[in-house]
């Protein structure tokens, strides 16, 4: 009972960016990027000790600017990307002490400009050891991220997000900047980035990608992007559009995720408070629509192992875990291969057949008090997930045990 209680961690800054450390498969570890215009921004490395129910954190400085998006390399634990804003007339602020913030205001000129950039970073190698020896010391003298390379191209605009090649070797990333999708090759242990190909969204008005997702299927050759109310699929080999879901949502599409096990299935969420599940082979109608949130849905995430579990975060300050059995890869419960099936398991298998699970909301988490902009599953423990609200509150929750056992057994 006790360990089903959520674990809450508070950051002193507002935050939007959250990711699981993808390459880490042993420890439950999340990265959080803060948003502050006045102080040095930080990346919090949150370690969760499942057995003792304790959070360990480490802070790294991200002095380039406030973080809007964060992505962890699937190959190298220490490598990550961020999308950040920096105001150009203001860069000196990065080096001054936080207490001086109120004094700085006089330096702003009227033509100051805020630009969005993207970069690849490496964590200092000893961040972990440092924190364990003396937490206080590390807090006072936080180490700084080491810049590997910028993912910026003067010809292309503001970066909205950076996507790592799923399950790749950490050599390829895609950045979405305004209406361009740029495929980068990282060389020389990621210190050098070159654009290998680009795709541009053409159309009336100022088109802008809001979010995107690199499909783990089809040999990682597909990308899905969202702009305004439309979802588009791209073939990375030709950098051409392969499908388009016009008006996928009534309002802006905020986030996408691919089903990790069913290659044509895609989840999307948006400002119409809905979460929709699509089969990209027939895009006229969504396969399923959820309407549980009472405000915009900012994030949707499939569980990496059990794709019936879907996590959605919304600015109604709620996090909802849904069990979408009917459109999962295991619509009839957990399918155990014959050879794996021991005698004991056979009995459970029969039990399962008696009561098939139905699509349902598993639970609604109300620990947040501000808009929840991000939610992520742990890469190490498929039953753990974290959510981050704007007020800097990170909550780590577990899938309810009853459901966990029903899925497993």
């Amino acid at each position: 009972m006790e360990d089903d209680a959520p674990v809450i961690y508070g950051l002193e800054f507002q935050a939007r960016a959250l990711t699981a450390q993808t390459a880490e498969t042993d420890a439950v570890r999340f990265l959080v990027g803060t948003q502050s215009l006045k102080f040095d921004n930080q990346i919090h490395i949150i370690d969760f000790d499942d057995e003792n129910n304790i959070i360990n954190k480490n802070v790294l400085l991200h002095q380039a600017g406030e973080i809007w998006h964060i992505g962890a390399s699937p190959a190298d634990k220490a490598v990550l990307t961020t999308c950040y804003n920096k105001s150009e007339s203001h860069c000196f602020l990065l080096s001054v002490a936080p207490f001086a913030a109120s004094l700085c205001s006089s330096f702003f000129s009227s033509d100051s400009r805020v630009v969005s950039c993207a970069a690849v970073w490496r964590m200092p190698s000893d961040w972990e050891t440092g924190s364990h020896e003396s937490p206080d010391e590390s807090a006072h003298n936080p180490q700084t991220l080491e810049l590997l390379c910028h993912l910026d191209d003067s010809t292309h605009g503001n970066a909205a997000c950076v996507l790592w090649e799923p399950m790749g070797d950490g050599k390829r990333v895609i950045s979405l900047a305004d209406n361009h999708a740029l495929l980068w090759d990282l060389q020389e242990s990621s210190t050098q980035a070159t654009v290998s190909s680009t795709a541009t969204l053409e159309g009336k008005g100022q088109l802008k990608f809001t979010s995107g997702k690199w499909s783990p299927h089809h040999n990682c050759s597909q990308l899905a992007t969202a702009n305004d109310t439309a979802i588009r699929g791209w073939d990375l080999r030709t950098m051409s559009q392969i499908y388009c879901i016009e008006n996928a949502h009534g309002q802006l599409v905020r986030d996408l995720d691919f089903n990790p096990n069913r290659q044509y299935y895609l989840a999307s969420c948006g400002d119409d408070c809905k979460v929709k599940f699509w089969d990209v082979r027939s895009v006229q109608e969504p396969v399923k629509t959820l309407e549980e949130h009472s405000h915009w849905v900012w994030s949707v995430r499939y569980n990496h192992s059990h794709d019936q579990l879907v996590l959605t975060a919304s600015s109604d300050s709620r996090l909802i875990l849904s069990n979408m059995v009917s459109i999962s890869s295991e619509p009839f419960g957990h399918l155990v291969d014959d050879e794996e099936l021991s005698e004991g398991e056979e009995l459970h298998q029969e039990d399962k057949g008696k009561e098939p699970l139905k699509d349902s909301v598993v639970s609604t988490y109300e620990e947040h008090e501000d808009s929840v902009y991000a939610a992520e599953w742990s890469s190490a423990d498929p039953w753990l997930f974290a959510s981050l609200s704007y007020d800097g509150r990170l909550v780590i929750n577990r899938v309810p045990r009853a459901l966990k056992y029903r899925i497993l057994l």
Partner: protein
Amino acid sequence: MVGDGSVPVAEDPGRRRRVHGMLKLYYGLNEEGKAPEQPESLDPCDINGPHFDPELYLNKLRRECSLTELMDQETCMVRQIRSLDSDMQTLVYENYNKFISATDTIRKMKNDFKKMEDEMDCLSANMAAITEFSARISGTLQDQHAQITKLSGVHTLLRKLQFLFELPARLNKCLELQAYAQAVNTHRRARCVLQQYSHLPSFKGIQDDCHAIMDKLAQELRQKFRDGGSSAKDLSECVELLLQLDEPAEELCDKFLSHARSRLESDLQGLEAEIRPYPSTSATKDASVHGLSSTTAPGSPADGSPKNSSLPSPASNTDILEFIDRGCNEFVSSLCLVITSYQELFINHAQKGELASKNIPQMANGKLHVFVDDLAARYFMLVERRIQEEKGVGDNSLLVRALDRFHRRLQAVAKLLPGSAVPNKGTEIVIRAATERVKQYLSALQSFYMDSLTDVRQALATPRLSVAGTSVAGPASGRDAPTSLPELLSSLSASILNQIKSVLASVHLFTAKDITFSNKPYFKGEFCSQGVRESLVVSFIKFVCQSSRQFCETAGDKGGSTPPALLLLLSRLCLDYETSTISYILTLTDEQFLVQHHSPVTPVTTLCAEAREAAQKLLNHYVKVQGLIISQMLRKSVETRDWVNTIEPRNVRAVMKRVVEDTTSIDVQVGLLYEEGVRKAHSSDSSKRTFSVYSSSRQQARYAASYTPSAPMDTNLLSNIHKLFSERIDIFSSVEFNKVSVMTGIIKISLKTFLECVRLRTFGRYGLQQIQVDCHYLQMYLWRFVSDENLVHFLLDEIVGSAAHRCLDPAPMEQSVIEVICERG
């Protein structure tokens, strides 16, 4: 004296009677002295009494009377005695004469008898002579008599033979004259004889001749039978004759029926020609029919209704009543005729005659049933096809009358043919037609509803356009358009109700008393409850709810395709339905149709719940759509501006004014249809409230936050505490059916959007100040619309707080300056 008197009494009994009284008087009771009947005569002094005692009498006289009196008495007595004696003498004389005459008579009689005896003897002698003669004559005539008898026998035989010999000729003649009946009759009389004597060559010849002739006759009859030109009566005569000619009955039945069939089929074809969904099959035949009917078509009543004429089907050039009439008059009546004559011929007739033994009635009956069923099936098929074409719902009475006639005429068949399935099938057709009709009414109602919605939509669109063209002022356009909203609502609901009523009235015709099929159990029970109540009324109400819900689903996301006013109107309509209309309609239905709920029916409460749900959904959707429209304005205004490099605010931005204007017009619009609702008490100075949280504790807390090491649960404490005490706000939540709740919903959505958009931007100093001004302006005007002004305060606080947080140079504007700017604007 006394001794004398007794002689004449014994001597003449004949006279005695006459003089009895007198003698009795005189003598008293000599022989019958004990006569008890004379009690007065007991007096011995009564001279006339039986107990007269002369001594006593004398003594008495002597004692009582004087001498003179005695003398007188004595003379009187003498005189009386003398008269009595003379009377007695007269009597004796008279009786003597009579004795004399009687003796004479007897003597005369004796003589007469003697004479008679002689005559009798003479007579008996004569009789004996006569007998003898007669016997002699008989003996003589005996031979001749036998001869005569024989001759007369021969004569008769000869006449019979003559008849036989003349038979062929006679038959031929009959044949020539076509007097078939006579021929058959004649032949029948001769048949047995011919049969009996067929071993004689001469008879054989005659028989053969007769056979030949009769064969010819039969042939001719059959021919006539086959030709079919003759009337039913002729035909039945034919059949009767043929039956008498020992034709096999089965074959005759078949022939009769097939002949009847050919005629009935021509009727059917005539009917079929009137239905023309398959013009190719009967195109040539149709040409003539069409030619005839096309002249009448434009004036025919079926074309009178607009629904009918709009149909492309050319089939309605005779209306259904005419069609059924024709079917009844031609097909059904000929069918009845056929059945009657057939039964007359083969069944009733056969039962009497020798044919009964051969099970012919059963066989014939079976054949008849098959025949009738077959033809009736085809007839029904045609009728059904025709009924199916009856799509227009303009005039139901025509159809009902047609069906009634159809059904009524089939009753005749039912009477004629008791075991037949035909009437049942006919009833089924009627039932099907009725259910089909109910379905059509439902779809008509539905399309009527959709049409009225389209009308409403147009009515909503037109004034808005014109006003938008003439004046730019928001409130004016907002106020003008919805003035007609309540009117539109009432006219819409009234027209729907009227339509329902008229449909109910039309459907009610099916159960009218004078309609034959209305007392079938189906029309009494199931039709009313399942047909009318469930699949018409309930379905329609459900359809209304359903279509309302569809407005929320399909058109919803873009927000533009359904005018919000229509959503509002429909929501009110559904709510009205929930409160009163549904129960009214159902009560009306139940009353009109006396629905007996054998089967479970949808209860009013379910429908009401559904309507309420639809109303709720529509209203929620209305809130959402209006909220989104305002949100969109706010979002665009936040997203498209460069907040970092903006000038010092001098005015409230136009978009905020627009937001307030739109909100006001929405408020007016909603106020037209929904009640005010309750709101929390306002603070004394609602519009002047400053952003206390922002300007004091919270803001300072944020910016004073030292760069301290992060620890769980220690940052943003104040802001978190603040939030602990404020309730969680559900943005797109359900609203109540009142104006305040609706407005609260819309404003919540708008402000939350504003907040989220602000959080995505970065602000310069003046950007923040502009937001402050804008928020204060909104604060001034929006509080009055919502149920709880704290909600507006809270959200605006959040917006300003977030803007301040997203500001590169957070130098808030003086509250007094803000107020001045806002008031100036």
